[in-house]
């Protein structure tokens, strides 16, 4: 049973409970154990890096150091946590003085950062480590006919990591087809969802959300799959405000990729945290209905 050091991050504690639950369910079903890091701290999200870079590196380095203690690869389901962890490890490896400076601080907790563990986003665990073939074999309840729009969000691919093409990534589409569903050609799949702008300048963020929703409708997708709690919130919870602001009637369900994957693996919706959404996901469930009850 391959183990990973799970760094849930603050979203998975509160608003993204369903992401957390579905992540653990699906990974267990795929033979992978997400072992939560004990005594982890906030990762600084997107804002803190611009306030005080040194302290934000220290915050993230502490989490990495804890994971290193158990010598497990560091997995972050949330894109912002993943980006911070990825670049902290990169810059500390490149700048020995910075690392030494931060390690001096970590000694308080008798922790030490060396940077010898891999940093992965949850979706990478499924797509790269497990691989699409292995997932397709495990899918017991293929979601034929369900058209899913793969929404990468921005921080998974940018700033440029060692992913494939930043403009035209394909790994999310492969995952969806492995679930038996039909990935939709979604042109705005790497466009920004507004992120924390939703609070600071609401209308600008809402117009970005609107573009994403409209594009999903144009590509006649039935559901948008995301891999980041903030994107999920912006896309789902603010559909109402987008409709008010722009006079549109969007009603598109937004689910985490782990939830849809869970359905295809035959895991009942309740155990995937499905049912608490603001936008009804009943239609999506009809595609998963057939096999559910004989589990």
């Amino acid at each position: 049973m391959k183990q990973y050091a799970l760094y849930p991050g603050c979203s998975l504690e509160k608003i993204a409970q369903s992401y957390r639950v579905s992540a653990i369910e699906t990974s267990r079903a795929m033979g992978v154990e997400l072992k939560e890091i004990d005594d982890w701290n906030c990762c600084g999200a997107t804002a803190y890096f611009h306030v005080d870079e040194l302290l934000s590196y220290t915050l993230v380095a502490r989490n990495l150091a804890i994971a290193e203690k158990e010598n497990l690869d560091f997995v972050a389901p949330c894109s912002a946590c993943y980006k911070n962890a990825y670049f902290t490890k990169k810059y500390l490896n490149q700048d020995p003085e910075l690392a030494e400076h931060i390690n001096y601080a970590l000694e308080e907790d008798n922790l030490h950062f060396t940077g010898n563990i891999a940093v992965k986003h949850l979706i990478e665990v499924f797509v790269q480590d497990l691989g699409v073939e292995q997932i397709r074999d495990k899918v017991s309840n293929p979601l034929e006919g369900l058209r899913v729009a793969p929404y990468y969000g921005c921080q998974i691919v940018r700033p440029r990591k060692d992913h494939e093409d930043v403009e035209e990534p394909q790994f999310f589409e492969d995952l969806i087809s492995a679930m038996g569903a039909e990935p939709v050609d979604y042109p705005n799949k790497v466009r920004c969802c507004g992120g924390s702008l939703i609070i600071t300048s609401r209308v600008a963020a809402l117009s970005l959300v609107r573009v994403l929703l409209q594009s999903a409708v144009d590509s006649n997708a039935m559901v948008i799959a995301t891999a980041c709690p903030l994107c999920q919130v912006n896309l789902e919870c603010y559909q109402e405000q987008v409709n008010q602001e722009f006079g549109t009637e969007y009603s598109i369900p937004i689910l985490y990729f782990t939830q849809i994957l869970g359905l295809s693996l035959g895991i009942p919706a309740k155990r995937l945290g499905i049912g608490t959404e603001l936008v009804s996901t009943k239609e999506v469930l009809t595609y998963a209905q057939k096999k559910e009850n004989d589990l």
Partner: protein
Amino acid sequence: MSEKVGVYICHCGTNIAKTVDVEDVAVWAGDQPDVEIARDYKFMCSSLGQDLIEEDIKEKGLTRVVVAACSPHMHEKTFRTACERGGLNPFLFEMVNVREHNSWTTDDREAATKKAKALVNGAVERVIYHQELEMMPLEINPNTLVVGGGIAGISASLELADAGYHVYLVEREPSIGGHMAQLDKTFPTLDCSACILTPRMVEVGQHPNITLLTWSEVENVEGYLGNFTVTVRKKARYINEEHCTGCGICIEKCPFKVTDDVFEAGLSTRKVIYRPFPQAVPKYPVIDTENCVYFLRGKCKACQIFCPTEPNSIDFEQQDEFLNIDVGNIILATGYDLFDVSKIPQYGYGRLANVFTSLEFERLVNAAGPTSGNIVLRDMETPPDKVAIVHCVGSRDENYHKYCSKVCCMYSLKFAHLVHERLPDAEVYNCYIDMRTPGKGYEEFYNRLLEEGTHFIRGKVADITDSARTDEEEGKLIVQVNDTLIDKQRRIPVDMVILSPAMEARYDSRKITQLFRMGCDFDGFFVERHPKLDPVATMTEGIYIAGACQGPKDIPDSVSQGAAAAARVAGLIARGTVYIEPVRASIIEEQCSGCRICNNLCPYNAIIFNEDKEVSEIITALCQGCGTCVAACPSAAITGAHFTNDQLMSQIEGILWDVGKGLESIKKVESVAEIGD
């Protein structure tokens, strides 16, 4: 060995004198052994400076001359001629580089002067061992090979042929014409490309002095300036060129069609037996064996059945022919490839139907093209209302090509004009970084476009998407660009986008450089002998380059380079014999033991083994003088003219004269008995 050496130290104005104490070096040189006279002079390369040498040789009976000045690549020839005028063999001369290698590289006057003395002393010791050499005459075969039948190759061939010299023109495609044959209009005069090109093509086709070898490729090149032997593979056309009248019935009757990716850039089809375009020269069609049913499954033969000629011109048994042609010079005019725009995914080429490349648009707008000149979308029917033209696709880009491809701005303007002309009420948006209109009449053409109401947006296009945000964008291609002049992000909905890709070196340019033994730069363009003063010659004698293969350029430059290369070749042919540096290796037969160590060292196969004498011999004509065999010969039986072991050994001793043994120079220790140390 006592000689009378004249040493001349040049001030080069202040270039040398500023850092090297030239007077001191001259005085010091004066009292070195074997030095008859040592002078320093302001400008040795001036005629007065050269006269100094001439007079000293005559009056002082100098037997050797050393000049310490700039790099030999600059003025070695000048001073050799000066020696010759003075009656001294030009090879009894050695040049010392005290400018580029010394005065320009340091401010330390003392070190520079010390270094200058050492280099001069090395040259003096070396020049004593110089032997008289004569430049080697080389007969120039008057035939010339031109590789590539584009406009550059055509103009080179015509210039030479008109001058009365025979030319072999080898072209890889079935017809000459190159990229220019695919274009509709040419900037800035808007001449129809075919109208100005086809007369030249016909001229080539009919010229008695030009042997046209199309559908052929160069397989191998041997030899050197004046005597190249080139093996050309003439691929089988399966058409007998003597009998075929070019009537085209076979093309008509051929029942099979395939998309024409080469000439029509994939926009329309051609028959399996085809001519690339009506005005093709030569007129003979070619059978595309990959798609011809006869070659695939052995049936059809419609073309043969309907061929009216007697005997029948279609010959399915035809084989590739290998021709060995002897030429004196070779002109490479192999042209360019276009950058593959699908390498920039965010521009959507291949994903979004109405994103076209410039070549595709050239075919669209061409009267002989698939739509007979009507500008329409990919559905081949609806004309666009709004057209966006994107400059610098893959050019001036850190991730792709850093260089500017020179012509895309101009032909993008041409496209804008053609759209205005054919679709008067269409809107045209040109997205550019900097509008580059350097040629004659180019800027005026740009102003003309401004007057025609083209929208010019100064910004690099971020991406092209079909995901509309407003009704106005519905069903359109949205060009997202940051308009830097009004500092706003703009989303321009258009119906058609034309991408102007970078001009790239041919995909196989590296293979060509190895075939012809010359160089190409990092981007794959051929390297000229001197970027400013000698752009059509290469480092290899007898190989010339012209047109886009040397770097992105427009038609006027390609034509003038073609003519320039032809002029260089004509100059050589006119002279008939050319005198080349006698820097060659030769084997002293008595000392050769026949060990054959040298036999496979020569890249020019100039070393052969004489079986009966059991010694190796060097074919002087083939030898290029690199000296690799001289350094390898274990019994020192091979000597390299002008770079002999004695010369180099004494130069080493000379430049280290001031080391260890205090300042007095090491007396030459006689070779045999070295008395105690």
